[in-house]
């Protein structure tokens, strides 16, 4: 048996995906971005509807200038971890800025959003503790639970009553109970009932961590996410998020009011044993944060665009998730049909994400699209038209 024998099934699956549509859906190359909403794919300008770049800030001119200036003055990398030579003044400044944005006592910055969940969850919940995870949690949350050896109990997706029931079953068991939920779920765009989760937390004495990766900059009067919108920020012990979505760069963070946060810096392996963010990324992130804070109209435009895409797809006769959020997924039944649909959309000049089970809820393949504040109404209408045309071409809708 070779080392790679366990991947035989995967190799067959990817061959089948290519046979169904000609492309490897997980090997798309954006040769270069033309703007936040258009990129060159296969030599052609293509509308980008699958990027998580919610505010379009990956192409924000002040961020680009700030990055260039930081690189010129400080170099392009730190070559070390945060606990060794990898903490520059900029890292501290960014942490203070993030903490101030969330009105929290402390912030820890990680090199990616994945590592923020991995590093926070694995360190907070040890082998004698319980993690209660929403069944549809992101892979970084599940991976964090494994790295920390906590006992993991799943509860039904977005179901506070089910969480309550499972916490009650743990009554009397030793160990802390840490509940993990997400603000907006990345596959379907559905939104957590955060106020109800906060009520369960208060009643049971559990701790609550909210991953607002997809909701910061998107929801809430000041863009602080679903907990802000629902008025329950005081009940959230830890907020985890990322710079790689609404802020357009890369990196992650955890903010909290708990005074013990500094101790996490000395025992969180994904924080300690990886190179820290380079100066140009930090500078770009801080410039983007200014824009996020001072231009709430970006969130208004984003939600207007989300509504336009969602209602356009529903009007076209397609099945989408119920919530209107910047993540809009078309729900399909058959993987081969989903692959053909995704390929046809790209042929028609629209890039979205193909999401396949088991990474999707309820074993349904999805065409996952995400809108931006910078999409024009005409671009959204073009995308809706392409969705409808491609659906007819591959038999999702009657011709």
């Amino acid at each position, binding site marked *: 048996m070779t080392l790679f024998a366990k991947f035989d099934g995967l190799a067959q699956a990817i061959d089948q995906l290519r046979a169904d549509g000609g492309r490897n859906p997980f090997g798309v190359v954006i040769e270069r971005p033309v703007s936040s909403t258009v990129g060159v794919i296969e030599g052609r300008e293509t509308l980008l509807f699958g990027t998580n770049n919610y505010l379009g800030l990956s192409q924000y001119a002040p961020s680009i200038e700030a990055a260039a200036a930081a690189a010129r003055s400080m170099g392009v990398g730190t070559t070390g971890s945060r606990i060794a030579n990898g903490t520059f003044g900029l890292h501290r400044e960014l942490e203070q800025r993030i903490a101030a944005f969330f009105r929290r006592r402390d912030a820890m910055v990680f090199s990616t959003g994945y590592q923020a969940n991995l590093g926070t969850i694995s360190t907070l919940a040890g082998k004698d503790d*319980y993690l209660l995870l929403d069944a549809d949690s992101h892979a970084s949350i599940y991976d964090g639970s494994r790295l920390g*050896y906590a*006992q*993991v*109990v*799943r509860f039904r997706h977005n179901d506070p009553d089910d969480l309550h029931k*499972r916490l009650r*079953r743990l009554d009397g068991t030793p160990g802390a109970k840490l509940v993990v939920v997400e603000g907006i779920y990345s596959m379907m765009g559905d939104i957590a009932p955060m106020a109800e989760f906060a009520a369960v937390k208060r009643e049971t004495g559990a701790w609550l961590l909210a991953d607002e990766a997809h909701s910061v900059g998107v929801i809430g009067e000041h863009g602080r996410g679903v907990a802000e919108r629902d008025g329950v920020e005081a009940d959230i012990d830890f907020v985890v998020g990322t710079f790689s979505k609404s802020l357009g760069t890369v990196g992650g963070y955890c903010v909290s009011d708990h005074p013990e946060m500094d101790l996490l810096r000395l025992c969180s392996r994904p924080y300690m044993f990886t190179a820290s963010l380079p100066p140009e990324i930090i500078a770009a992130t801080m410039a983007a944060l200014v824009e996020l804070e001072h231009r709430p109209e970006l969130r208004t435009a984003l939600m207007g665009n989300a509504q336009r895409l969602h209602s356009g797809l529903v009007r076209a006769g397609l099945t989408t998730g119920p919530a209107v959020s910047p993540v809009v997924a078309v729900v399909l039944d058959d993987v081969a049909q989903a692959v053909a649909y995704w390929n046809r959309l790209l042929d028609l000049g629209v890039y979205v994400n193909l999401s396949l089970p*088991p990474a999707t809820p309820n*074993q349904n393949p999805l065409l996952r699209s995400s809108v931006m504040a910078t999409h024009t109404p005409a671009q959204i209408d073009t995308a809706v038209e392409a969705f409808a045309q491609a659906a007819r071409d591959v038999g999702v809708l009657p011709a």
Partner: protein
Amino acid sequence: MSETPAQISALIVEKLLANPKVPRDINGGSRIVEDLAFDSLAVMNFVMEIEDTLDVSVPLDRLADIRTIDDLANCIATLKSGQ
């Protein structure tokens, strides 16, 4: 109420057979992944149903050692007896 592993195993088989996609010839010795063709998510979702039926929580780390339906039944019986 405290069920025996055999009773729990029979209940799991009955639950599984309610799913028309599951092979008809399963028994306590059937392997959950190989014989039932469940992927990791399907296993977790099925265990969630069993948890609710028997009012017990099976931490995910316990699943790593479970291969057969009887293994799952034994694990649940142990959890329910508070060991």
